């Protein structure tokens, strides 16, 4: 084919939904089919179909199911990560509302492809490691820290998934023993990742007075505090 046009707009504008401006014969003229035909001696040019590669001989199937099996409808929908609240930007201090670290104030690093937020204490300050957190269980404060010096490209959801346990068959004697699977220690690589990420952050945090103590303290409601009236 000759070079395709940049945009393939229709030459037949829509006057109103369902009704176009030009009739069939007018469009024939507009598209220039008469000119193409004239160039090729009264016949619209027709290209031979490309020779298809020969298909391998199909074997008859080994098994014919007794009942009709329904073919599933293909689903091409792709998940988008959850929409991030505008108050949460990289470097924001977040307050965790649930889980083991309930009430801890923590630094937001980035949103992972699954939609979860990547977050770190920093570990030295409040004991929260690099961790994933759901946006719904978080309050975004208006305190921001500069995290331009931190490289978080390597972290994604695969980094945080649990490793699959291999099932080993137990002999009868061992079966009645209490679980003595060794609790896995954190691999040194993850500890190093934590240290590198936190090193940059802690520098930025110590530049602001009281921020280190703030991140080390937990948030809680006191008497007279009304969450719907508090400014975070």
């Amino acid at each position: 084919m000759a070079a395709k046009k940049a945009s393939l707009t229709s030459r037949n504008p829509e006057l109103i939904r369902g009704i176009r401006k030009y009739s069939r014969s007018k469009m024939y003229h507009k598209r220039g089919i008469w000119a193409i035909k004239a160039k090729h001696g009264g016949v619209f040019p027709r290209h031979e179909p490309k020779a298809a590669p020969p298909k391998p001989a199909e074997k008859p199937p080994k098994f014919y199911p007794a009942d009709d099996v329904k073919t599933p409808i293909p689903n091409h929908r792709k998940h988008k990560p959850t929409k991030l609240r505008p108050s949460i930007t990289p470097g924001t201090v977040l307050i965790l509302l649930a889980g083991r670290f309930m009430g801890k104030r923590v630094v937001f690093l980035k949103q992972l492809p699954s939609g979860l937020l990547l977050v770190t204490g920093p570990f030295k300050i409040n004991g929260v490691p690099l961790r994933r957190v759901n946006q719904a269980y978080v309050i975004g404060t208006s305190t921001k820290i500069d995290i331009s010096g931190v490289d978080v490209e390597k972290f994604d959801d695969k980094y945080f998934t649990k490793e699959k346990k291999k099932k080993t068959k137990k002999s009868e004697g061992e079966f009645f023993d209490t679980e003595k699977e060794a609790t896995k220690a954190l691999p040194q690589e993850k500890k190093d990742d934590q240290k590198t990420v936190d090193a940059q952050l802690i520098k930025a945090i110590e530049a602001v007075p009281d921020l280190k103590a703030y991140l080390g303290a937990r948030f809680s409601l006191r008497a007279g505090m009304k969450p719907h009236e508090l400014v975070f």
Partner: protein
Amino acid sequence: MPFKRYVEIGRVALVNYGKDYGRLVVIVDVVDQNRALVDAPDVVRGQMNFKRLSLTDIKIDIPRLPKKKTLIAAMEAADVKNKWENSSWGRKLIVQKRRAALNDFDRFKVMLARIKRGGAIQQELAKLKKQNAS
């Protein structure tokens, strides 16, 4: 026992209900037993029920129904803004507004400052107690 703050032309009042909550306005005329005509430099003159107004101690000198220019000039002459902001009522409101606008980090800093202040007071008290005991 007797009343001290009267509804009169030129009385400055605080709006305590409605769209203009928290604004200072001047009573410019009285409509009837319940309503006053009220005006302020950045407000369209309009009527307001007395129940929506809290009278203040401040009164300015204006004729009945002054033009906006005269009203503004009279307010400047009487220095209403500064008188209000230095009065204890006005100061309280300013502090309330500031406290309500505190961010979570600010609240933390305030807590640290209060603890520090308390510590300093206790130290002084201990010193004085020691002096007294000796």
